[in-house]
C-alpha cells in the first residue's frame, strides 16, 4: 500500500466519516472517531451534533480534541454538563450513533476492550470499557472502527465489553437492552462491513480500493458473510486528504 497517496488509516477515517448522517447526534469516542467526526462536519455532515461522554454537546470542532473531556469537546457547544447528563441522554434514546473502537470484535459485533485471556489472570490487561459499554448499550446504532486482522476479528471475543448483537437475533432485547438498537457497521483498515438483518452476523459490504475479498477473508478469524454484491469504497478525495492533513490532524497524532 505504500505507493498509494494515502495511508490505511486515512482511508479508514474517510470511509468512517462518510457514514455520519447529517443532522444526527453522534457519540464520539477518543481517537479515530474524533477525526472522522471532524472530517464529516467539514464535508458531508455539517450539522452533526457531537456528544462527548463527560458532558460536551454540540461543540464546534475547530481543533481536534485529544480527550473526551477536554475544552475542545464543548468549544462553542450548546451545552456542557456532566457525564451523567450525557449518558442519561443516551439511555433516553437521544443519541443516534455511537462511534467506537476495541481490541477484538466477533461476528455479532461484540467488542472487547477489557482483557485478552482469562479475566482474573489475563494475558493482557486492556484499558477497560470506559464509556464503550454504555455507548453500545444505549445509542441507536453503533459503528466500530478497527484495525483488520485475524487476531482482532475473532469467532468469540475473550470478554464481551460492549454489546453487539450478543449471541444473535433477539439476544439484546432478551438481555434487557433497548429495543431496536445494535451495531450498524464496522470500518476496518481493509473494508466496510455491515450486519445481515436475518442472522445479525457481520457481512462484507464494500472493499477498500486495492483490497480483495480473499485478503479480507484471510484477515478475518471467522466466516464473514460475503454477499453477491460487494462494492468498492471511493478512495479519499483530494479535499478529504487536505482537510485531514492540513486542518484536522496537523500535528499528526493519528495519521
Amino acid at each position, binding site marked *: 500500500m505504500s505507493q498509494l497517496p494515502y495511508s490505511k488509516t486515512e482511508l479508514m477515517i474517510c470511509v468512517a466519516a462518510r457514514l455520519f448522517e447529517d443532522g444526527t447526534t453522534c457519540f464520539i469516542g477518543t481517537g479515530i472517531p474524533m477525526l472522522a467526526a471532524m472530517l464529516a462536519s467539514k464535508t458531508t455532515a455539517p450539522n452533526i451534533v457531537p456528544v462527548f461522554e463527560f458532558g460536551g454537546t454540540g461543540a464546534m470542532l475547530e481543533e481536534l480534541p485529544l*480527550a473526551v473531556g477536554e475544552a475542545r469537546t464543548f468549544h462553542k457547544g450548546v451545552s456542557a454538563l456532566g*457525564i451523567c447528563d450525557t*449518558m442519561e441522554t443516551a439511555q433516553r434514546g437521544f443519541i443516534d450513533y455511537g462511534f467506537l473502537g476495541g481490541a477484538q470484535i466477533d461476528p455479532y459485533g*461484540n467488542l472487547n476492550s477489557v482483557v485478552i485471556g482469562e479475566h482474573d489472570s489475563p494475558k493482557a490487561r486492556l484499558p*477497560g*470499557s470506559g464509556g464503550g459499554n454504555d455507548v453500545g448499550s444505549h445509542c441507536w446504532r453503533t459503528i466500530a472502527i478497527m484495525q483488520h486482522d485475524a487476531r482482532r476479528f475473532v469467532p468469540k471475543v475473550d470478554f*464481551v465489553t460492549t454489546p453487539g448483537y450478543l449471541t444473535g437475533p433477539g439476544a439484546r432485547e432478551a438481555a*434487557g*437492552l433497548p429495543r431496536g438498537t445494535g451495531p450498524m457497521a464496522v470500518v476496518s483498515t481493509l473494508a466496510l462491513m455491515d450486519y445481515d438483518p436475518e442472522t445479525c452476523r457481520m457481512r462484507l459490504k464494500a472493499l477498500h480500493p486495492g483490497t480483495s475479498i480473499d485478503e479480507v477473508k484471510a484477515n478475518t478469524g471467522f466466516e464473514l458473510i460475503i454477499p453477491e454484491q460487494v462494492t468498492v469504497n471511493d478512495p479519499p478525495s483530494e479535499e478529504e486528504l487536505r482537510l485531514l492533513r492540513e486542518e484536522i490532524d496537523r500535528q499528526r497524532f*493519528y495519521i
Partner: protein
Amino acid sequence: MQILESGQGELIQPFDLDEFREWNRTRKSRKLTDKVMTEQEAIAQFVYDGCYIGTELYGTVRCPMSLAREVIRQGRKDLRVCGQGVLELDLWLAAGIVKKLDITYIGLEVYGTSACLRRAVESGQVEACVEWSNASISWRMKAAAMGVPFLPTRSMLGTDMLKYSAAKVVEDPFTGTKVALLPALILDVALIHVHRADRYGNCQIEGISGFALEMARACKRLIISAEEIISTDEIRKYPDRTVIPYYLVDAVVHAPYGSHPGEMAYLYGRDEDGIKEWVEMSKSAEGAQAYLQKYVYGPKDHAGYLEIIGSERLARCVDLRERRQA
C-alpha cells in the same frame, strides 16, 4: 422482582447508608470554617493506607494532579481506587500503591494503552479488577449522592461486564423489563480540582463538570484543590454557580496549575511534551520509576514541581487554552 443475575465481582467498598448519614451528621461541620491548607497537610490528614479513594475528572483534564502526586510522595499504600484514569492512576500504579480497582478505563487515550496497568495487573500486584462502565461508576456515586442503595440502568446488561461487576439484574416490577442495579459507591476520600473555591470550600467549575457533583456528594472526606481562592462574597453573588457547597468539603488546597500536565478549561491547555514524557518513560518499569523520581519524589511539593516545569512552559500552556467566544 427476584434477582436474575449477580455479578461475581467483589463489592470492594461495601456501604451502609445509615452509617454514611451518621458520618455526615457528626463529621461534617455546617460552620463556615477556614479549610485552606497545603497538599501535604490535606493528604497527611485525610488519606490513609487502605482507604478507598477516587480522583475526578482524569489526568489530562481538570484533574487534581498536585494532590495525586502528594499521595505518592507521602507513601500511602494499599489503596482501593475507582474509576478511569489517564496519568494520575498510572502514577499510582507505577508507585505500587494500588491494591484493588473498580476499573472503568485506565489508558493513555490518544497515546494508547497503559503499560503501568498491564504490569500492575498482569503481575498480580493489583489484587482485584472489578469492571464497570464509565456511566455505571458515575451512577454508583450518584446513588450514594442521592442517599439511596442502588440505581437501575440498562448499561452492562447481556455482557461480561455484568458478570465481572458487583451489579445485580432484576425485573422491573412496573414494566417487567430487565434492569441492572448498581450498588451505591461511598468513597472514603475524593480528590477534586476546580477553577475557584472560597476558603470554606464553596466551589465553582467552568465548562463540563464531569462527575464532580456526584463524587463530591458520595465521599466521606473531600479534598478540593483550586486554581484560585476567591472571596465568599463572590460565591454568594452567584449561588447558582456553586456546584460543590462548603459543607461537603474537608480541605481546600490552593493549587495553581494543579491539573498540569493536563488542561484546565479556559485557563490553560495541556502540556503535550509533559504528557509525552510520561508516555515514553512509563513504557518500562525503570522509566516509570525515573519519572516518579524526577517529578514526584524529587520536588518537595507542588511549588517545587512547578519550578521543574518552569514558568516559560506554563505560559505556553496558557497560550494554548480554549477561549470563551468573544
